[in-house]
């Protein structure tokens, strides 16, 4: 199966669903770790076509959603520092920190600009030599190499007024952290497609080996996802736990080694705080000491008041797979995409936004 004509073919979908129903006996919980998968699953009503013994949970797979309040507060403080042009991917604008959001600060007059890539941020730095241009470096392994390149490029061109505030995170350590927490008993992971395009399939192997949890890397079409679920079900029913690639057109076992090298050259692993999960050792990426001059967290000495979580928001539990969006009392009432209280409702890939947008009705976990 390679092309969309086949991914869209309802007879293939039907056959996959029938296959799943036929082979799936045990009650299982699979977690999709990628926000784009969450959207595709909700949009295509995949939960509803699966047999009742299969539950799908959304995990910590949206970089916007897992950014800790404290990191947003610091980003906002940097954006407000004198002489700063703060650049960010659009998704981060409306995410509330403890007291405010970038979007509110922008309305108050801070120079905050939405960019599509670090290339744009670098251009802004070049065009505004008297300003300090800071890029809010948010993302997983898909994004990290592109940001690493911007640092190498700034160095090559001698751009001295470009900095990044890195809250980068890596996916496999978060998957392991959830398993170690032991709050939800998972049987398999639907692994993210484009993170895996960079890292390949090997970094998930310890999860299959040490935790005995099945992993399948999935594409984003409904049939991709159904196929991955059927691969997971087969593994579980056969008593196996291994890493398989269901998204061969985008992912190889080694991934993009060039991108991995760039990432390694610029970044090193560091402990990072995840919303709802806390600090996960070696799950973040910070600039290596020889690139310290580009590190906004070292250059800007900002003071932020203690962080404050939003009363009643269940984003943390949702990101850990402990609750579904409907379990949050604020869902669809006090909290909507127009007036979001937590990041899971802000980001288009957040679970709450996906459930809200596609009106998903699901029984409790």
């Amino acid at each position: 199966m390679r092309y969309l004509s086949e991914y869209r073919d309802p007879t293939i979908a039907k056959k996959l669903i029938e296959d799943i129903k036929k082979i799936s006996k045990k009650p299982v919980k699979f977690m999709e770790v990628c926000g784009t998968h969450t959207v595709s699953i909700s949009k295509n009503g995949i939960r509803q076509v699966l047999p009742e013994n299969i539950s799908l949970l959304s995990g910590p797979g949206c970089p916007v959603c897992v950014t800790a309040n404290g990191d947003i507060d610091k980003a906002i403080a940097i954006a407000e520092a004198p002489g700063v042009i703060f650049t960010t991917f659009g998704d981060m604008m409306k995410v509330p920190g403890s007291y405010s959001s970038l979007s509110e600060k922008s309305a108050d007059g801070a120079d905050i600009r939405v960019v599509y890539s670090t290339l744009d941020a670098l251009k802004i730095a070049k065009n505004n030599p008297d300003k300090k241009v800071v890029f809010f470096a948010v993302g997983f392994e898909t994004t990290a190499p592109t940001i690493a390149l911007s640092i190498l490029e700034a160095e090559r061109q001698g751009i001295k007024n470009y900095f990044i505030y890195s809250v980068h995170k890596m996916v496999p350590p978060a998957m392991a952290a959830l398993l170690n927490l032991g709050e939800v008993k998972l049987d398999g992971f639907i692994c993210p497609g484009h993170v895996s395009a960079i890292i390949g399939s090997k970094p998930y192997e310890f999860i299959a080996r040490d935790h005995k949890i099945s992993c399948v890397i999935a594409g984003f079409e409904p049939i991709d996802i159904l196929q991955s679920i059927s691969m997971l079900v087969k593994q579980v029913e056969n008593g196996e736990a291994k890493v398989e690639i269901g998204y061969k057109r985008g992912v190889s076992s080694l991934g993009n080694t060039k991108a991995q090298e760039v990432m390694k050259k610029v970044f090193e692993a560091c402990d990072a705080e995840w919303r709802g999960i806390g600090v996960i050792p070696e799950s973040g990426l910070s600039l290596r000491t020889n690139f310290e001059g580009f590190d906004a967290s070292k250059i800007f000495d900002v003071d932020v008041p203690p962080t404050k979580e939003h009363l009643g928001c269940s984003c943390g539990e949702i990101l850990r797979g402990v609750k579904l969006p409907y379990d949050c009392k604020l869902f669809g009432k006090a909290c909507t995409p127009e007036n979001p209280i937590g990041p899971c409702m802000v980001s288009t890939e957040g679970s709450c936004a996906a459930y809200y947008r596609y009106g998903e009705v699901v029984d409790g976990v």
Partner: protein
Amino acid sequence: MCLAVPGKVVRLKDLDMADVEIGGVETEVGLQLVSDVKVGEYVLVHAGYAINKIDEEGAKEMMKLFEEIGELDEIAKLRENDEIS
């Protein structure tokens, strides 16, 4: 946010840059993360950089998907409004 979209390489430029057509709009894309890209080939683009090469048929089918999701529109809008200055 980790979604990558397919695009066709229209023009190779200096310093490992290329113009890539994504959803009918030409965008400048960095080629530093991929090897031996030629004009007419397709790449998977994420945050301004090509992160993988893909074959033509696969790329075209993926484009249809992303058009539906609206991701390509968003990129085009950002470019047209010239929010990046």
